[in-house]
């Protein structure tokens, strides 16, 4: 990995607001430190950013502590592992038993979760579920054998420490030759940073959930629409949203109004750079380690061949762009031939971007694209599967398909289909009958979707029909097929729920504190259906066991540890309950998890 040189661009003379979003060139280095922070930071080295140090072998020591950072011009304390953001890249080897000692030098408890790694539940690192957490001053020894290969990551599972800097890459190298050939290999870890106390951010959202949304519809937009499409269509476009009190621009809870988007711990102005020689095959291991941000990633001028998803090798698929949420990873191969390319990762709500450069030498940069325009959520995002073909069209265009909706006819048909399947013995297909939980009919939810979409070939809001080839779940095929050839013995349906107005997030309308665990019988093969009753995309992460995503017809697609479920979408996957113990299962948007979009899973 090349060393980062963040100093080759002059700090642009931008208004402070721009500097805030784009960050300082010298992110991570203390600038203009105020006296009180200096006192707090005394004796502490600055946090390293950019090229994370690489640790390998079977014995690793990690130290969690506070260290100073400065991404925006305002010095802050971060929570770091071995004093760097991202944390050290762990390069481990398949089949090895590793011993990782984690020492806590914070004033509060901490933990590390090895995201996507199959291991005994006591080593999974979720305080209160897998173990007691690591109290201040103490060391916890993790020990587990690596049964898998690929790109993964690790992060704190305590409080808001993941937001404040505790995340790093974890690569498990195969014992045999890696079937993915590459001349260069870079980790590209995306994350987001806020100068605010994340708990204060959450408290603000509890008061006003659109606090950070400055893309709201305005009277000016309305008059522009009236001029463009006439009064009745302009009113029509808004009728549903207004009646239901939902916001069509509610794409992210946090925006560039508080976040600085980071690539390998470097701000856009800092421009993380990876070097190559023209014609080389470069492997980029993209990890979304953000607490709140879905990224849309592309490298203008380069096709990306996706070869791995969530650590599992997939049949190569070549795309221009992919979207991924917190917790997900994609490995891509690119073959750059020009001098410099921009790695551009815009946030899904189009309020900012993380950015870096692939170049033949340090100091080069390529054009940075403009952010794509903000798109309103569509009827498909709110209501689901009225008409797949109409996706991406504006709302009035979809009206014609809605008359059928009130009769529930479509859902009935699908339901009967599934019933036939079941009476046939095998649950060959996921059931399409929507079964809302009793607890979804109350103040904890703001809507329910009766006609979910089940197609997986939708890239999602803001990426539809953008002229680029965008990866979707339907494009992914894990090489070698499912781990377990058995079909599902039973079905578990869980609904992703929330009430944006109250800023509540839950499953089946029940927050974690009111929930009971999901029990899986040891050894059983079970189908899980995640049904999204909200207007946001939720990256759902099941600890300890693989989630094998299937098509609506029950055909195996891809093995994942984190599954993004789009608004009004229904995604099903099979799980083999081969890992005894208690496990966490949650939305990987940190604030959603923290508000209770979280379940415990017991395998016994």
């Amino acid at each position, binding site marked *: 990995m090349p060393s980062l040189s963040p100093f080759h661009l002059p700090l642009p003379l931008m208004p402070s607001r721009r500097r805030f979003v784009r960050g300082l060139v010298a992110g991570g280095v203390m600038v203009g430190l105020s006296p009180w922070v200096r006192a707090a930071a005394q004796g502490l080295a600055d946090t390293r950013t950019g090229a994370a140090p690489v640790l390998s072998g079977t014995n690793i020591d990690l130290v969690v502590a506070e260290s100073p950072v400065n991404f925006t011009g305002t010095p802050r304390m971060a929570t770091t592992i071995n004093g760097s953001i991202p944390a050290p890249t762990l390069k481990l080897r398949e089949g090895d038993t590793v011993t990782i000692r984690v020492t806590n030098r914070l004033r509060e408890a901490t933990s590390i979760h090895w995201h996507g790694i199959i291991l005994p539940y006591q080593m999974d690192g*979720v305080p*209160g579920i897998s173990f*007691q957490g690591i109290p201040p001053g103490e060391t916890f020894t993790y020990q587990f054998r690596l049964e898998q290969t690929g790109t993964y990551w690790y992060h704190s599972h305590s409080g808001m420490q993941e937001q404040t800097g505790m995340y790093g890459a974890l690569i498990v190298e195969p014992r045999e030759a890696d079937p993915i050939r590459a001349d260069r290999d870079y980790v590209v870890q995306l994350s987001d940073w806020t100068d605010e106390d994340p708990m204060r951010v*959450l408290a603000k959202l*509890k*008061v*006003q959930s659109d606090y950070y949304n400055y893309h*709201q519809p*305005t*009277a*000016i*937009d*309305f008059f522009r629409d009236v001029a463009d499409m006439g009064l*009745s269509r302009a*009113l*029509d476009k808004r009728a*549903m*949203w*207004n*009646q*239901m*009190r939902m916001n069509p621009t509610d794409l992210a809870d946090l925006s560039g109004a508080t976040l600085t988007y980071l690539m390998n711990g470097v701000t856009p102005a800092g421009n993380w750079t990876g070097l190559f020689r023209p014609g080389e095959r470069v492997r980029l291991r993209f990890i979304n380690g953000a607490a709140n941000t879905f990224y849309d990633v592309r490298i203008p001028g380069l096709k990306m061949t996706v070869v791995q998803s969530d650590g599992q090798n997939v049949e190569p698929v070549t795309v221009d762009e992919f979207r991924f949420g917190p917790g997900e990873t994609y490995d891509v191969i690119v073959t750059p031939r020009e001098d410099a390319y921009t790695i551009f990762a815009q946030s899904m709500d189009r309020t900012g971007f993380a950015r870096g450069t692939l170049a033949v030498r340090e100091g080069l940069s390529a054009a940075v694209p403009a952010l794509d325009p903000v798109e309103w959520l569509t009827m498909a995002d709110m*209501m689901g599967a009225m008409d797949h073909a109409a996706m991406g069209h504006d709302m009035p265009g979809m*009206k*014609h398909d*809605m008359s059928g909706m*009130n*009769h*529930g006819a479509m*859902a*009935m048909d699908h339901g009967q289909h599934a019933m036939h399947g079941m009476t046939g013995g095998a649950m060959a297909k996921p059931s399409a*009958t*929507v079964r*809302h*939980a*009793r*607890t*979804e*009919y*109350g*103040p*904890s939810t*703001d809507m329910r*979707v009766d006609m979910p979409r089940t197609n997986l070939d939708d890239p999602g809001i803001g990426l539809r029909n953008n002229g680029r080839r965008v990866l979707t779940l339907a494009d992914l095929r894990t090489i070698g097929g499912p781990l377990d050839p058995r079909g599902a013995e039973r079905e578990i349906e869980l609904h992703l729920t929330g009430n944006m*107005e*109250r800023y509540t997030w*839950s499953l089946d309308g029940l*927050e974690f*504190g009111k*929930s*009971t*665990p*999901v*029990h899986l019988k040891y050894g059983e093969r079970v189908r899980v259906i995640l049904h999204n009753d909200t207007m946001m995309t939720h990256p759902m992460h099941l600890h300890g066991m693989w989630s094998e995503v299937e098509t609506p017809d029950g055909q195996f697609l891809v093995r994942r540890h984190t599954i993004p479920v789009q608004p009004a979408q229904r995604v099903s996957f099979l799980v083999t309950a081969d890992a005894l113990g*208690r496990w966490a299962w949650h939305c990987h948007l940190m604030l959603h998890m*923290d*508000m*209770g979009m979280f379940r415990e899973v*017991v395998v*016994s």
Partner: protein
Amino acid sequence: MKLIKRRFAMKPCSLFTAALVLLGAAPVWAQTTMEGGGHAGHPGTAPAPTRAESPASATMDYGSMNMQGGPAPADARDPHAYSNGLTLESGPYALPGPRQLRLSDEHAFGSVLLDRLERVYTKDGNATAYDAQAWFGGTYDRLVLKAEGDVAKGKLEEARTEVLWGHAIASYWDTQLGVRQDSGTGPDRTWLAFGIRGLAPYWFNVDATAYVGSSGRTALRLSGEYELLLTQRLILQPRMEVNLYRQRDEARGLGSGLADAAAGLRLRYEFSRQFAPYVGVEWAGKFGQTADFARAEGQRTRETRYVVGVRLWF
């Protein structure tokens, strides 16, 4: 429900519309919570769209499409059905002792909003008015404090202070039960308060409270706000308030029936979400016996107020 509502700038809304919605507050609420009731697979429970106009102007009643609110059907799924009797504290592999993992759904939050802190200019003199709300607690149950009043010439003219238990009953609606204390000119009055507040379709903030006082007094207070985003930071807020009393209360200058009403327009600029200065104009009137009392005191019964103030919360 939280105190601060974002609102939608969708269509220019007149005060007249706001007034209509306000006066119809109870029916609007009833409709919202009673709507729905069916779920997928139960054809016929939802009303079919009734309007058939030209495609461009055909509108659906989205609010009644079963997507929001309503009672759970009898065969709704049991959210605990997958637990086999296990709990977060008990069963195999549970950590010993009481549950350790507590997320923010079990934390208490709180906020103080000064919705209006303003200087009021009228032909007959000037005053300072405040309208504040604070809450502390969880998402579904919280302690709510409301305080509204006027101070003129260093003297508290009229003040209403309420301490309430806010309880969420539907997606956008809370009940608020508690006590209200009126002070200022005239004898103090204490009431029990039974209120409902929330967000009506089309983003109207509505607050309707019935009060029961001593010696058979009852009162009704309706208020509502709308927030029209002219830009992301420039916000026009129409606001309405109406007070009705069943018995006359001469000592406080109140007659029976409609006593007073106010309608205002405030234009604020949000330097941040939490700090927004504003200017505005408000029309206020007294009616019926209340107006008679005012006239007897030599006061005006109709007045136009110009206001300059600040809205802030923390």
